[in-house]
């Protein structure tokens, strides 16, 4: 409702003139511009509709969730959220947290020096190394799942959150190396050369000069790693059972053959998605750079 209010107010509002003079492409008649704005809004709301529906459903009773025609007006309830927590959501969230945070820390610890090596002080065959990294990103994980399963079984590390940490680190490392490389390349050469003339050791240079300069880069790299690790499903599905099961598996185990589970599944879905959605909303800019592996600034 507030949508229509804002958009119809558009043409008469004083902001319009300013907007037009500031931006080149804004041109066209005020009416056309308002129509375009309205269109954009409607499109966005339509596109967002499934998410809205998910959130609505999560506040319903099961019988309202699976009704035909759909129920739009109902007395909201927190029962489903309560049920999710009572079913032991804490354990799943804890595992996801450990797998995500530890793997991200490891990725950064490994990727920063590697990216430094391939950007600021290029080694021979840098390009090949870089392409090796990114090519591992393209391999279908399914091709290696059987050996990983069997080896993990032999090592007695099935259903163990550290196995996920290991695999998520491997999964995100190529991405992180590429991203960090693009950040290192923004460091002015002069800064580096000055440090070398000072005779500072590699570690000192890194710690005192480079790391502070690429700190924002590290943050956005970490964000991307967190998103991918948090949402990862395939390894978690195959390699965990009870002890190390992560949040995506909580969703799968909410689906029963019992029939009505939709509202509870929706509540679980909202909880599961919330951390990444919030992080993504806050860090929209970093998202772009991360998703393009550092290619787009």
């Amino acid at each position, binding site marked *: 409702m507030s949508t229509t209010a804002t958009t119809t*107010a*558009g043409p008469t509002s004083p*902001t319009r003139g300013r*907007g037009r003079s500031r*931006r*080149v492409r804004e*041109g066209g008649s005020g009416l056309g511009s308002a129509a*375009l704005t309205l*269109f*954009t809004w409607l499109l*966005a*709301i339509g*596109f*967002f509709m*499934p*998410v809205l*529906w*998910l959130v609505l*459903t999560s506040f319903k009773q099961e019988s309202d969730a699976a009704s*035909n*025609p759909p129920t739009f007006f109902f007395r909201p309830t927190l029962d489903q959220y309560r049920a999710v927590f009572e079913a032991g959501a804490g354990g799943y969230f804890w595992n996801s947290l450990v797998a995500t945070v530890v793997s991200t820390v490891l990725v950064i610890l*490994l990727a920063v*020096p590697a990216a430094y*090596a*391939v950007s600021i*002080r290029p*080694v*021979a065959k840098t*390009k090949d190394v*870089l*392409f090796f*990294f*990114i090519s591992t990103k393209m391999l279908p994980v*399914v*091709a*290696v799942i*059987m*050996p990983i399963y*069997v*080896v993990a079984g032999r090592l007695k590390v099935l259903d163990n959150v550290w196995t996920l940490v290991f695999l998520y*680190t*491997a999964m995100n490392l*190529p991405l992180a190396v590429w991203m960090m490389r693009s950040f290192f*390349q923004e460091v002015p050469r002069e800064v580096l050369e000055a440090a070398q003339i000072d005779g500072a050791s*590699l570690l000192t240079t890194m710690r005192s000069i480079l790391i502070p300069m690429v700190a924002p880069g590290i943050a956005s790299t970490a964000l991307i790693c967190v998103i991918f690790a*948090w949402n990862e*499903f395939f390894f978690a*599905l195959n390699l965990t059972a009870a002890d190390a099961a992560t949040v995506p598996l909580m*969703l*799968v185990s909410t689906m029963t053959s019992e029939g009505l589970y939709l509202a509870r599944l929706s509540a679980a*879905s909202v909880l*599961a*998605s919330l951390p*990444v959605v919030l992080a993504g*909303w806050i860090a*929209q800019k970093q998202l*772009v750079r991360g*998703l*393009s592996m550092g290619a*787009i600034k």
Partner: protein
Amino acid sequence: MPASSTPARQRPAGRRRDANPAVSRGARSDAQRRDAWSRRLPLLPALVFTVIATQIPFLITIWYSLRSWNLLNPASDVFVGLSNYAAIFTDSTFRQVALNSVLYTLGCVVAAMVLGTLFALLLDRTFRGQGIVRTLLITPFLIMPVASATLWGVSMFNPTFGLVNWVLGLVGIEPLDWTSSYPVLSILIALVWQWTPFMMLLILAGLQSQPKDVLEAAQMDGASRLQTFLHITLPHLRRYLELSVLLGAIYVVNTFDQIYLMTAGGPGTSSANLPYYIYQRAFLGFDIGQAAAMGVVVVVATIVIANFALRLIFKGFMSTEQN
């Protein structure tokens, strides 16, 4: 565009070293070696880790692919040479799911790019609530894929109480049985919904990096907006489009969650893609040898295609970074 790439960076440093005649030959090679190592050392942990985590399992996969191992029948584990590979090429289902893989990847990337471009163009102007609209539009990408798969599979596409059928009913369309009558389309819709924001973000970044003065100049010269778009914006966007297609394809080609949760590859195998089919052969069929052979074939195919595409597209970005 000058084609200077990474090795070019090494040159100035190398020249400087060579230009120092005071160092004797032996000492220099020693120093060089030490220097080379100090360059390599920071790279090694990541490199070794990646090799261990990705290459060793793959070698084992190759080994499995040469054996006929049915997990349920321990006695079946014998060396059979290339017969698992031979079986793949006579398996009509494998061809069908390979085709599905291509269909999903192309369909999703193209549709998401068209939609994403549209959204990006709409967002690339100032209007009330721009930030909110942008936030709404990127949300589908941030929703956990497992959650969005069940959201589409159950809440949206359920034949009895799904929202989509209800909406269609408003305009008089008979309820459709989405996931079993149109499984590939259903999954594609869910995928496009998830990946459109990704494309939108990348293309939007491209739009916003356009030099403003050029656009202004074009408008001064009396170019229409369509002309400006076709002759200035589109060429500028080209490499952004290329990059988003490539990256999108890398992510989408390995789609698993949506297929697993929405249709389980069904009805039959009609909506399975390669990753899902291989998973099925391994974890529902327990035919490890066969599944491994399929895995190897897919990996080889991916490497060939990807290496080609990667070098082609990333070249643009890597060389401009240097300058």
